[in-house]
Structures are given as structure tokens and as C-alpha cells.
């Protein structure tokens, strides 16, 4: 299992490689990148703030929950970046391997969906005319 929170650019290929296994023919990977638009507004850049010890702990818990739900899971790799990110930068990579492909899609989607609900990382979008903490208000 590879779990990491980093303020450096993420090496996507290395994360995928960490998820590969000779016993598992299917690797599914989700890569979250910084979009140039959000709900119709032009985004200039993003700032990710993290609560590092809890973020790493919760990333690991999410990976462990996936392993419980999919005992066939062979490898799990999750790396999240924090700090200031420019358009096109990679913010998060989740990669999993399973013997058969349907499980790899389901487990990867579970991990990114759950990560977004529980991992203490906060995204502030910067526009040309201001900033907003994403999803902070109803």
C-alpha cells in the first residue's frame, strides 16, 4: 500500500506502478487535475490546505475500507498533493489492482468518492476577482 500527502508534483507513472501486481491483470487509476473552469467561473489556480497527520491517517483508513469491501484488491496507491496548484496540475492519484477489471473500477471509484467525503483537505479556488473555499457553504 502506498499512501502519501505531498507538496511536490505527483509522479503519476510511479503511483500506477506501485499499484501493479503480477497477480492482478486489471489496474484502474483516477487522476484528478486542476480544471480551468468551475461552475462557469474561470479558475486561475487552486490552493489545497491539508491537516497532514489526520489526512494521511484518513487516506489510509479509506484504503483499508476498500480492502475490506474488495478482498480481491491486490494493491492500493493513493497520493494527494497540497499547496498551490496551477491549471493542469495533478491534485490526486488513486490506483488499484484486482484480478478482474470490474472490481478495479468499483474499488477505485469507492476510494476517490470516500476520500472526498472524509479526508481533511480543503480546496480554495482562485478566480481573477476573488477566492472561494469549495463546498464550504450550503
Amino acid at each position: 500500500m502506498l499512501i502519501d500527502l505531498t507538496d511536490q508534483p505527483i509522479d503519476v507513472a510511479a503511483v500506477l506502478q506501485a499499484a501493479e501486481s503480477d497477480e492482478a491483470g486489471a489496474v484502474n487509476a483516477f487522476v484528478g487535475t486542476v480544471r480551468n473552469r468551475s461552475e462557469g467561473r474561470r479558475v486561475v489556480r487552486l490552493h489545497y490546505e491539508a491537516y497532514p497527520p489526520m489526512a494521511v491517517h484518513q487516506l489510509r483508513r479509506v484504503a483499508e475500507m476498500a480492502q475490506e469491501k474488495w478482498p480481491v484488491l491486490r494493491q492500493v496507491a493513493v497520493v494527494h498533493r497540497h499547496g498551490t496548484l496551477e491549471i493542469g496540475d495533478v491534485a490526486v492519484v488513486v490506483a488499484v489492482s484486482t484480478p478482474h477489471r470490474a472490481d478495479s473500477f468499483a474499488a477505485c471509484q469507492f476510494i476517490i468518492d470516500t476520500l472526498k467525503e472524509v479526508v481533511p483537505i480543503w480546496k480554495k479556488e482562485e478566480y481573477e476577482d476573488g477566492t472561494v473555499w469549495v463546498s464550504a457553504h450550503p
Partner: protein
Amino acid sequence: MINVALFGIAREIVGQSSLALPAGEGQSVGELLATLRTRYPELGRLRSLAVAVNNEYAGAEVALHERDEIALIPPVSGG
């Protein structure tokens, strides 16, 4: 005293990255949240507000101790 770490919009609302409170103001997670919402009404307008104790989300009834690592968790938006 208990120390509460603050992040994201909660840090901006309070205007500092941690708060020290007399233990009496937050003997439980629920009491801590009530105290903070009274003192900083803008916290009450957030979509959610949770408390983490030693890196785990804690329910309202959990008791707080001076040595706990306590953090206020506004709505997360990673990924």
C-alpha cells in the same frame, strides 16, 4: 486548557490557526462546537462542522482531554 487546530474557512473565520480554550468551555465535542458557534456565528453558516480528536472524527458526546489533538473540520473538498 484545550487546543483546537483550525483549517481552511474555519481558520479564516476565526482569524488564527489555533485556539486555546479553558477546559470548562469544551468538556465534550458537543460543548466545544456550541461554544465556538456562539463566539463565531459564521461557523454556524457552514455546510457542516466536525471535530477530530486524535485524527478521528468524534461524535458530540466524546469527552475532550488536555493532551488530545483536537481540530475543527469544516466541509472537506479534497480530490
